[in-house]
């Protein structure tokens, strides 16, 4: 998929992916750094290349993963990437730091790996890997950098425990060099090691919404509204005893409250960006997960899905028809295989969580429609009560509503009281499966042979209406 994606991006994606996995396998805090040095001159065929390095302080690499780049190397024109990687790696128990050059363009397999000079550690204990490569400095570099920034922004969302990620982009040889520097905020690095991965996700996503995706500056208006964000989380997992790996899916939904007085123009945007991660690395969303998104019963939570777009980079944007809220992001994280059922379960769990925490806000579409009729119904009943000349009847009604024994209760107060009670009941029963079972009848019925629901055009009776 995403064959339109540039080979540079695929390459960097893979290198970062493996770096993240190596960090996760390490038990101590790790750092992952991507650094890009670009020459200042405009792109020409003979200009200096882009120097890229991906380094991490995770467990040492066994080099096997780099062989997976074989196919990519063959697809990529030599001018763009010469297929060469310079790898420096050491494991925690290794005595030395090993250096290798891998040339994936090399036909002869024995000539692919060359071992370079080894440096001894002298009993120092550390581990890590650095991968260096050169990419062509062509016209797409700006796009690449933009993508990389977005990619890192997303990695920082996930906040994998014990992992700090950084991105440095330097422009060399120019007086007014534009540098990009993305580091994890210092307060975030201190996030508790014991916090669950889902909590990290929530925290990361909250920050992400303030950045509105790719930009580097926090939106001031949204930072203030951080506490008004509504969050729903859900998880599902499956343990396969035969394989030692289990499959774990987590979903976090963040909804920003739309405020008409907000100075932020992004707030009222009727679309949702979906961030999808696999093994803690932002990835292309799988087709089955995308299908789950499209086929979820959003209406039960009050959302009307207009459509969903899967972009080139595997980004997904969901568009909504009705907008009282603007969901900003959602993410999933899972193991190596996709399981549609788990994704659906986790998503549903996250939505239910949202609904449970914010009762009235996520009423299903049907519930919202019914709720619209409540004021008129309350008005009719209140009007009936207050038109009565029977004081005893009125007093009894008012007592039932718990309105106290003030002398003059206004029709408005009675109406509001009835209205509130009805709305609360509608919200409570909204997506309860057995809500219909125990609804009381207004009058007791002798036999309860239940007929089907009366429809509006029923009553054929010889088609007459007297």
């Amino acid at each position, binding site marked *: 998929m995403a064959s339109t994606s540039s080979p540079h991006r695929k390459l960097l994606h893979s290198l970062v992916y493996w770096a993240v996995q190596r960090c996760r396998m390490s038990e101590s805090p790790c750092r992952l750094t991507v650094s890009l040095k670009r020459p200042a001159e405009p792109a020409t065929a003979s200009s200096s290349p882009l120097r890229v390095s991906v380094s991490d302080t995770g467990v040492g690499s066994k080099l096997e993963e780099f062989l997976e780049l074989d196919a990519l190397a063959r697809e990529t024109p030599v001018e763009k990437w010469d297929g060469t990687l310079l790898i420096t790696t050491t494991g925690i128990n290794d005595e030395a730091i090993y250096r290798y050059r891998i040339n994936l363009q090399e036909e002869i397999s024995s000539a692919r790996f060359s071992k370079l000079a080894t440096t001894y550690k002298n009993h120092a204990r550390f581990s890590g890997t650095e991968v260096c490569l050169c990419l062509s400095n062509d016209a797409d570099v700006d796009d690449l950098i933009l993508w990389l920034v977005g990619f890192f922004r997303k990695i920082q969302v996930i906040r994998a425990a014990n992992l700090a990620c950084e991105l440095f982009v330097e422009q060399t040889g120019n007086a007014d060099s534009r540098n990009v520097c993305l580091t994890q905020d210092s307060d975030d690095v201190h996030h508790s090691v014991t916090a669950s991965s889902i909590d990290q996700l929530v925290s990361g996503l909250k920050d992400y919404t303030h950045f509105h995706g790719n930009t580097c500056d926090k939106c001031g208006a949204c930072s203030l509204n951080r506490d008004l964000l509504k969050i729903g989380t859900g998880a599902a997992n499956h343990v396969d005893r035969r394989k030692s790996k289990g499959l774990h899916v987590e979903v976090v939904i963040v909804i920003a409250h739309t405020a008409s007085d907000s100075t932020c123009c992004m707030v009222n945007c009727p679309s949702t960006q979906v961030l999808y991660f696999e093994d803690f690395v932002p990835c292309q969303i799988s087709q089955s997960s995308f299908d789950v998104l499209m086929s979820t019963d959003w209406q039960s939570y009050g959302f009307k899905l207009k459509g969903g777009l899967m972009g080139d980079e595997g980004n997904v944007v969901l568009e909504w028809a009705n907008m009282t809220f603007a969901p900003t992001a959602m993410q999933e994280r899972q193991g190596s295989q996709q399981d549609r059922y788990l994704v659906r379960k986790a998503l549903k769990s996250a939505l239910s969580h949202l609904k449970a925490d914010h009762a009235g806000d996520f009423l299903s579409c049907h519930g919202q429609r019914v709720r619209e009729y409540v004021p008129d119904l309350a008005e*009719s009943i209140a009007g009936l009560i207050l038109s009565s000349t029977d004081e005893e009847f009125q007093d009894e009604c008012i007592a*039932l509503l718990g309105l106290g024994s003030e002398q003059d209760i206004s029709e408005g107060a009675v109406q509001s009281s009835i209205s509130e009670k009805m709305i609360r009941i509608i919200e409570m029963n909204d997506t309860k499966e057995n809500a219909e079972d125990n*609804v009381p009848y207004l009058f007791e019925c002798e036999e*309860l042979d239940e007929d089907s629901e009366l429809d509006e055009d029923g009553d054929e009776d*010889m088609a007459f209406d*007297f």
Partner: protein
Amino acid sequence: MAEANVAAASLFGVDSRLCSADILAPPEVRARIEVAVLNFLAALASPSSPAISVLPLISRNSANCSLRSGLLNDVSSVYLSHTFCKRSLMHNPKAFLRVWKVMEMSYKILGEGKLVHQRELFYKLLSDSPKYFSCQRHVNQAIQDVVSLLRCTRQSLGVMASSRGALIGRLVLHEPDEDQIDCSILGASGHAITGDLNLLSKLNLSSDARYTIVVEKDAIFQRLAEDRLYNQLPCILITAKGYPDIATRFILHRLSQTFPNMPIFALVDWNPAGLAIMCTYKYGSISMGLESYRYACNVKWLGMRGDDLQLIPESAFQVLKPRDLQIAKSLLSSKFLQESHRAELTLMVERGKRADIEALYSHGFDYLGKYIARKIVQGDYI
């Protein structure tokens, strides 16, 4: 209030399955509405399980209707039993609201001691709540829902339907404290029947007629009235100008009660709708089944019938429309159609043709009167 109807109950026999709408005085209806409100609020405010109550309405459809025969006479009527359908806010909020709005209106109308026409009620509701009542049908159906819910008659709710009915002939009507009306000296449009059942029940009736003839259409009624048929044949002519409204049925029933030896004949077109109209006078209707069973009468089918078709030129026949066939199908599958009527209906469907009574005018404008007289004298009715 059921005790007041003991006489009527014994006439129809004891039947625990019959559901009836009571004829009640305004304070009693208001009391029922108050109970409805209190029950609703109690459910809303219940501390343990608050809920929005569902309205149980007696089902007004053919599945819930049965036929019962009178013990002391030949009158059979259609009645509704204890099968309910639910009106729930969650499933159909508009219809639910309509019931409450009609209850609210009725409560206020009765409180002011008024009686309003169904049509007036429609305009009031249309102006107050256009969102819920955009046509007369909405009002009529909501009223019947309230009748089903509270089990009291429409008129008890303070609503009456305008009557389209008229009568003429050898009958003197005497409203208490009013002048007498001699229906044999009226113009061809006859005496308009009021929609107020209460008023109709207070009328004194006196007659020397030997027959009552129920006429389907206004044009035929007027023709016979102009010809003063009732001077040649001692009879009372009555029409609802189409589908029988409750008031016309009511007065017909009163005639049958006051003059038990006066047979009632129906003069309808030869088509399924004509037969359906006759059946409504004869058995009552399903849509007002909670009330109309009281007013069923032993009506006999005089004409037009299959045997009369030879009197009509071939050109006078028309093809049965899809609507006619629909009505025929519904009648054929009903429980109350007697065998001889069923045979006539089957003939209609088989032939695929229909004919209006006016087709008899091919023999001259005075032919109809002679036709009627001959049939009655010959006992040619079923």
